[in-house]
């Protein structure tokens, strides 16, 4: 008997449960007050790796937690740094192809795989210059502030069902807030450089990012409303099944708001056509005019890290996250493999495999998002600062607000939703009515329905 499935539940639901993988992590059985508080302060779920260290290796609890934290940090920082390496190479390749040339071809073989690494070594060898007019302390701190902010967002981003550095129940909000912090490093850099061009860059960045946070916040509310949760793991899991379940196809408001989100995300990570802070034809190099070597590359790592972060966030909020377009590509692997091998659907190996596939899905979607950003960058001219702000205040904000209101409408009157694909809920179990956290049933329903819904709800909560 599968956990969480009761006798007497409709067969369809029991079958449908197969589509959803059991969570990799399950609540800890042993209560240890201090750990528990710490954990519950920051996270909801327990951690199987900790359990493994504690139970199998007999490590003390604090050591297990420390080891897990270090492993997670190691993985994430490698993802960001390695991502920057890859994306800089990709950017040069994409730019090259768009511009009818080859891009890097020599270092590391035919495709110039190692070009970025070679550049990185060159940057390391460069002289570290602090201008005479600069404020040395802030000048040195600024790149790290930027990079830290960009990196911190990754802590709350899930890569697959429950594969997350720190599961927060306000993860979406947290990530958007953290992405906004990157601007602080840029402003400090611009101010501390003691160069007029840098100051211009910093001023523009401040004005731009502060204003683009408004529509960005409005945009993420729409998928949050559809999912009824700010927890990214829950949001991702609500889109299980076929691609028709993705939130971008949920209703017209969500479809429109994705484009607004994408525009605002491009603006808030400072990519062309909104890269005014470093507009090379106007401000020399904007806020990083005076930077060289490793410090400069930290800004770049932050930029590419943020690009990947907002793309991954878009993938989770609108494109099903770790769920492939067909269930077989991600979570559907579990029952498929189980049927083939005869293993239990609960087998950790299968779940692990499915999560690995989900992780690949998510990263693939995020890379597509980043590639589109590159495509945009190498195609469009740059906007002027007043036009950037006009775009934000005159188009993005009203559009996002309108979508927000439309989404409220579709939540209240779901039958008016003109995108019927989504109502079929192919390949994913859904109760006929969901009781959401904090949402009250809005239409009279039979007590049976409510009970069933609560059942599904409690299952979701357990994993």
């Amino acid at each position: 008997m599968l956990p969480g499935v009761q006798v007497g539940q409709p067969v369809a639901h029991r079958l449908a449960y197969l589509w959803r993988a059991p969570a990799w992590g399950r609540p800890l059985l042993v209560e240890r007050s201090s750990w528990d508080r710490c954990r519950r302060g920051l996270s909801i779920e327990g951690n199987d790796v900790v359990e493994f260290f504690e139970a199998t290796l007999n490590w003390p609890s604090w050591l297990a937690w420390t080891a897990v934290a270090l492993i997670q940090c190691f993985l994430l920082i490698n993802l960001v740094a390695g991502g920057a390496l890859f994306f800089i190479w990709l950017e040069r390749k994409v730019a090259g192809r768009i511009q009818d040339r080859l891009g890097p071809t020599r270092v590391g073989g035919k495709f110039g795989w190692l070009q970025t690494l070679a550049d990185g070594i060159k940057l390391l060898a460069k002289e570290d210059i602090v201008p005479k007019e600069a404020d040395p302390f802030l000048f040195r701190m600024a790149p790290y502030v930027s990079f830290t902010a960009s990196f911190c967002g990754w802590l709350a981003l899930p890569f697959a069902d429950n594969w997350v550095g720190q599961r927060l129940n306000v993860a979406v909000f947290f990530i958007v807030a953290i992405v906004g912090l990157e601007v602080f490093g840029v402003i400090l850099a611009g101010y501390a450089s003691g160069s007029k061009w840098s100051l211009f860059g910093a001023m523009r960045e401040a004005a731009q990012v502060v204003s683009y946070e408004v529509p960005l916040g409005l945009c993420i509310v729409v998928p949050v409303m559809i999912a009824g949760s700010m927890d990214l793991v829950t949001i991702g899991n609500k889109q299980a099944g076929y691609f028709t379940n993705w939130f971008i196809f949920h209703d017209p408001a969500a479809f429109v708001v994705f484009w607004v989100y994408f525009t605002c995300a491009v603006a808030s990570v400072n990519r062309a056509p909104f890269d005014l802070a470093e507009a090379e034809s106007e401000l020399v190099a904007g806020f990083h005019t005076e930077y060289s070597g490793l410090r400069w590359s930290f800004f770049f790592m932050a930029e590419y890290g943020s690009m990947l972060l907002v793309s991954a966030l878009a993938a989770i909020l609108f494109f099903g996250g770790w769920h492939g377009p067909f269930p077989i590509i991600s979570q559907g692997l579990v029952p498929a493999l189980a049927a083939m091998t005869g293993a239990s659907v609960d087998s950790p190996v299968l779940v692990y495999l499915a999560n690995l596939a989900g992780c690949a899905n998510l990263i693939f979607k995020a890379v597509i998002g980043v590639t589109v950003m590159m495509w945009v960058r190498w195609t469009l001219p740059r906007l002027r600062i007043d036009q950037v702000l006009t775009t934000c205040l005159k188009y993005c904000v009203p559009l996002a607000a309108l979508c927000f209101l439309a989404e409220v409408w579709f939540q209240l009157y779901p039958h008016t939703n003109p995108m019927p694909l989504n109502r079929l809920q192919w390949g994913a179990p859904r109760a006929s009515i969901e009781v959401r956290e904090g949402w009250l049933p809005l239409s009279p329903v039979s007590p049976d329905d409510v009970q069933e819904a609560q059942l599904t709800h409690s299952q979701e909560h357990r994993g």
Partner: protein
Amino acid sequence: MATRLEDPRVVEFDVRTDEMLVNMGPQHPSTHGVLRLVLRTDGEVVSEVQPHIGYLHRCAEKIGENLTPRQWIPYTDRMDYLAGMNMNLGWSLTVEKLLRYELPEKARHLRVIICELGRIASHLVGMGAYGLDLGTFSPFLYAFREREKILDLFEEACGARLTYSYICPGGATADLPKGWLQKCEKFLDEFAPVIDEYHALLTTNAIFIKRTAGIGILPAEMAIDYGCSGPVLRGSGVDFDLRRDGEPRYTSMYDGYAFEVVVQKDGHYPRDHKYPPVPKEAVLGDCWHRFYVRMLEVVQSMDLVRQGIEFYSRSKGDWGTPIKLNQKLPKGEAYLETEAPRGQMGFYIVSDGSSIPWRVRARSSSFCNLSVVSELCRGCLIADVPAIVGSLDIVMGEIDR
């Protein structure tokens, strides 16, 4: 804010921030060489722009007083180094005017072909670099891809890719090689569809229009008053092109050629029906119109090259004989302006009867076109400065000489 910015009297806005003097250049990614613009800014609003030139001054005129006219030709190459052929032509015609030399028919058509190709090549750089000024890189490389093909043709004709010294007083240094005309026609056939790409990437691009339409408006009277010429003048709606309105010695070069001056008349460009429509936001004399005139002139030049190829292959005789290196010059003086890609390029030669001129003078179009920049940039935003300077399409080699 935008409507107020257009008021020329407005120089600053509160919050009171102190004015800042910023050097744009001489080393700056958008100044087209070593131009230094001193901006007086209040926040993002530029209240005054003061161009400082001379960083590339090489005393070309003084050198001209010590060399014979043929020896000075390489120095003309280095004036507008993006259109060396047209510079050669201007100087050659001036010397021929002083010598009262009559050119053979074939040389005339050869010069038309070469100079119009030079105009295309130059406008391609102007277009690509303008995209670069506005923050888009790809059109630049698309433009250079085509420009390289023209340079290949030039290389085949004269052996050089940038500083040609091909056209010289008396004709050209050599005839066009065998098979060159076919290659040239092939290039034109390949090039024609590419222009649509440029229109898609720039001319009709919404952001491009936002950045250029209504920016840096140069009224016709001001353009004439400041001696602006070429696409800058025609972009302001002044119907003036030396190929049609110049001296007979120059216009006779184009005898028999059919072309229309690219200028907006009654709200229409000559080729309006075939090319992207003028956007609503565009005002005659703004950056967009200057850019558009250049784009249409590329097409016009392609037509002229095609006609030139036909005339050239029909005409008999030789391509002219270059004058002797130390040809004695008659006493007197001659001034001639030609329509170079960037405007009216004038050369003035004074001779005292020896083979070395007494005085040589080059009147460059970019020099006058740049002088208007402080008028255009008053009250604009910092981001508009590269847009305006780029739309004037200056070459510092020509300004500083």
